[in-house]
């Protein structure tokens, strides 16, 4: 296979990892919303934890995007 083509295919495949982050973020906010609607008075105190979870989950998706960017620009 042409190495340049393989590089671009690899970059595209690496981006598939972001699907996992998408599932995780949907889970995170969905569960938070479910909990917040059950007990709205407790929701505000957990907003910090929610944002922390958002940043940690999103970072994992960014890792796979980073691999794609490395393949595109650095290799």
């Amino acid at each position, binding site marked *: 296979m042409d190495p340049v083509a393989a590089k671009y295919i690899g970059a595209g495949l690496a981006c598939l990892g972001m699907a996992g982050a998408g599932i995780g973020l949907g889970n995170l906010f969905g569960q938070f919303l479910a909990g917040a609607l059950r007990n709205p008075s407790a929701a505000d105190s957990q907003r910090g934890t929610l944002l922390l979870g958002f940043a940690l989950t*999103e*970072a994992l998706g*960014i890792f796979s995007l980073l691999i794609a960017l490395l393949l595109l620009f650095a290799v």
Partner: protein
Amino acid sequence: MILAAGGGHSPIEQFVLNKVVTWKPFGIDASITNSTLFMIVTVLLICGFLYYAMQGASRVPGRMQSAAEMLYEFVATTVRDNLDDGKDGKRFFPFVFSLFTFVLTCNMLGMIPGFFTVTSHIIVTAALALLVITVVIAYGFLKHGIGFLKLFVPSGVPVVLMPLLVPIEIISFVSRPVSLSVRLFANMLAGHIALKIFAGFVATLLAAAGAWKLIAILPLGLTVALSALELLVALLQAYVFAVLTCVYLSDAVHGAH
């Protein structure tokens, strides 16, 4: 990439280091680059803001003093909740405060168009993460002696499982500085590249003929939305860096769990 490059701009052009002042003492290249310059600007901004805000501090705070006090309280709450409530928390507060304000200001300065993002280089974030993990290890051994190694031995676990669990604990500890640095660096890098790529689409579409120009409004809108997301990420990543520093330091302070 081809679209973006067509306009004569590469999305990774923004991360190039340029020498501002060339300085080579004893043959070592210690030139001031744009990265160094922005770090100096960051530190001056933080010190200048805090100094100016607390000039003539009064019991009833003014606007600037309120901002400085809110920043202080925010980090102090984070340290109290995640690290320690007492003496050790106070001991590490300046460390966490410096890290948080430095990372936050670097991230925020990078959001200004045309400015350099210091934290988008792995060497900067890796240096910060190594500093954190060195402090954790040094303080852990200083406070608990050799007992600090009990951190790798989970309590209440059957001895049979130890050969499996101890290596896992060690690997998770060693990967901490890696994930801490890569998380911040990758977020900044990927965010800024995404911004540049969509901005490149706008330029390419505007250069195209006829009705294609009208479609340029779509990537423009997306660029604005991405900028808002990046502002949130810039703040969140600084916060996450501070919180994780607190969590790791709490291992050193409280010893085995």
